[in-house]
């Protein structure tokens, strides 16, 4: 397995541990707040929460004890071409699987006991990415919080294999679209992109007769037997709506559940779709190459059972993507321009500032305009020409709001870019946890590297959520403004019609 994927895999598992711990703290705090302290006697804490803390601490301890074996994730003495040996991979996989199984069990328990609600920012994201007006026969999309790996859905991925979700099973309310979300991801805006799957499935179902006709008439060549039309079409629809964020999320998810079949059959299709829609960035190429090398390595070593068979032919995927492009016009799609805007937000996120809006003009352009203004003089104070000039300058500081999808994509790009730095800091702490006596949130302080990792994660989540919300208020306040200020179609070119500098 390639080092890039190994790092992503370890990052994902650490991230889930931190997210569970944050939820547990939130739950514990809400229980404490309900206790009345008039007598000065405070709650002793919930035994249920304490039990979960203890179990979580043992998962953390297991990870920490294993982490010294992962040192080569950050060193160069690897076997071939940046990859690990088969034995190393198997060891890591068994360690991750063990941690993952424990976490799944804990999250299932937790989802039954705690009453956690989806955040209000989620509806802003859904409105942007999955407009209901575009979806026939559905009056609403209902987000259902479930334990990790619990699902209302079963989706045959390829051949006879049953993998993750898309087809609702006997759902009684036909006009409501249920969208399951893991309770661990409720505060993680980057994971919300997974909600597009049932939406895309519903869109495909509405169009499926037309598509099957197109296949019969030869306008869309038939897919290979091992790749179902619905699975492939849904993935292409999701990518058209969400862009690279969907690719990042799907690869991370497949990796976490070691779904080698998904990586083998679907990742090449998704990557071709990324190229088709002209999204370009080094993080995409690096991830794709790492998947390719890993698959090659695995097929040689036969460590994992990959369902043999051809992957989809490029011309078949192109025909499918052409249909998807016609189905979802640019107005609703996440275009290449959106992606370029998202990439520019990465710097702001790293500096921990809001990324809800970007100025129409760059600071350099404003600086030049100010220099001209100073040279020519502002005109006589209070004269009409003086006030026109200053208003032209002020207009240059106007900012345009970013679409929530752009903000969330910036989160993914930053994660992929900063992943190694965060991991190195979390796993290379010299401090170790003791083997017993772990109880309650105090256990956090025993592994400072992990506490820093969790803190960074929480700060990033908060910035993304706050930016999504602020961008929505910005849009409300722009009601009635010139179209170029509100346009969702991204452009960094100064808008035409802006007042000229005199």
């Amino acid at each position: 397995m390639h080092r890039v994927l190994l790092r992503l895999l370890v990052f994902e598992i650490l991230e889930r541990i931190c997210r569970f711990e944050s939820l547990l703290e939130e739950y514990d705090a809400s229980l404490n707040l309900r206790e009345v302290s008039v007598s000065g006697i405070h709650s002793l804490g919930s035994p249920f929460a304490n039990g979960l803390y203890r179990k979580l601490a043992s998962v953390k301890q297991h990870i920490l004890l294993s982490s010294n074996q992962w040192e080569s994730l950050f060193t160069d003495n690897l076997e071939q071409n940046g990859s690990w040996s088969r034995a190393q991979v198997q060891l890591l996989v068994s360690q991750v699987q063990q941690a993952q199984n424990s976490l799944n069990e804990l999250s299932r328990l937790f989802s039954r006991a705690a009453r956690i609600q989806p955040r209000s920012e989620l509806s802003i994201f859904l409105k942007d990415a999955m407009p209901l007006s575009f979806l026939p026969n559905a009056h609403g999309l209902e987000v259902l919080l479930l334990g990790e790996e619990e699902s209302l859905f079963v989706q045959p991925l390829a051949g006879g294999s049953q993998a993750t979700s898309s087809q609702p099973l006997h759902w009684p309310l036909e006009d409501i679209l249920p969208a399951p979300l893991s309770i661990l991801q409720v505060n993680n805006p980057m994971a919300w992109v997974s909600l597009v799957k049932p939406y895309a499935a519903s869109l495909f179902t509405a169009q499926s007769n037309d598509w099957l006709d197109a296949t019969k008439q030869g306008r869309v060549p038939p897919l290979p037997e091992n790749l179902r039309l619905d699975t492939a079409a849904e993935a292409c629809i999701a990518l058209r709506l969400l862009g690279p964020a969907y690719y990042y999320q799907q690869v991370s998810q497949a990796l976490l559940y070691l779904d080698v079949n998904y990586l083998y059959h679907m990742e090449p299709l998704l990557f071709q779709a990324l190229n088709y829609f002209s999204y370009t960035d080094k993080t995409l190429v690096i991830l794709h190459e790492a998947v390719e090398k890993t698959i090659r390595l695995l097929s040689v070593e036969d460590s994992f059972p990959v369902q043999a068979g051809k992957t989809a032919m490029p011309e078949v995927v192109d025909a499918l993507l052409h249909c998807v492009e016609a189905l979802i016009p640019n107005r609703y799609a996440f275009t290449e321009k959106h992606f370029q805007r998202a990439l520019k937000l990465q710097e702001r996120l790293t500096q921990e500032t809001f990324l809800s809006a970007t100025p129409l003009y760059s600071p350099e352009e404003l600086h030049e305009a100010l220099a001209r203004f100073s040279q020519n003089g502002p005109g006589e104070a209070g004269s009409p020409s003086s006030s026109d000039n200053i208003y032209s300058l002020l207009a240059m500081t106007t900012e345009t709001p970013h679409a929530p999808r752009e903000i969330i994509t910036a989160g993914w790009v930053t994660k992929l870019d900063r992943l190694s730095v965060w991991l190195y800091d979390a796993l290379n702490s010299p401090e170790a946890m003791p083997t017993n006596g772990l109880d309650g949130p105090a256990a956090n302080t025993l592994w400072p590297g992990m506490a820093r990792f969790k803190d960074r994660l929480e700060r990033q989540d908060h910035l993304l959520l706050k930016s999504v919300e602020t961008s929505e208020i910005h849009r409300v306040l722009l009601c009635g403004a010139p179209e170029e200020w509100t346009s969702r179609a991204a452009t960094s070119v100064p808008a035409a019609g802006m007042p000229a500098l005199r």
Partner: protein
Amino acid sequence: MSILNEVQILQRLSEPDLERRIMITPLVRPEEQFGPTSVDLRLGTDFQVMYRSNITHLDPTGEQERLGRDVRRAMQLVKVQPTEPFILHPGEFALASTLEFVKIPLDLAARLEGRSTWGRLGLQIHATAGFVDPGFAGALTFELSNVSRVPLPLYPGIRIAQICFYESGKTSLPYTQKRYSKYSGRTTTASSAFYKDPEYQRIRQAMQMETTHATAMTSPKPEPAPIP
């Protein structure tokens, strides 16, 4: 110490030297927000309201962890939607924050003031803390009070305050590096962390020493050992 005018503020917004650049984002409609020496700021969506029935009092000399919990218990969090108002009733006090992320360079200080439009309706936007230190970065906190006799509906995004900037000379003690800064980097409404002030730590220590001394004085002295 002079106050910056609109052109000087614009120059600072586009300053090539990042250390000297002011950041205010999002700037939604600058032509409405800029004044001759100020920039209007907008109201955010997070509010905290005092919820008195949950606590008897806040004793700053108590255990710090318990005090933190008491403060959280005393403040009810309210989040409003983008087109939904927060109603501030007569005589009520609430904490809120700016919609904008504000970053002040190291050589400027800033002052947050109310707008006369709202002042005429009886809305005060801060109690005593209108001063912003050089180096501050984050969302600014409002201490809202309604001193009128009618409830005031406050919508997120309304221009509720104004910020003006003063040249101070470059500080060696920016807000983010102050040893005892308690609200650094906050981007949401933050409740008071008064109990973290080091004075209380000293008072607690002094009280403990007094108690120990008093116990020692009142406890019976051991009988002298009999002489064999």
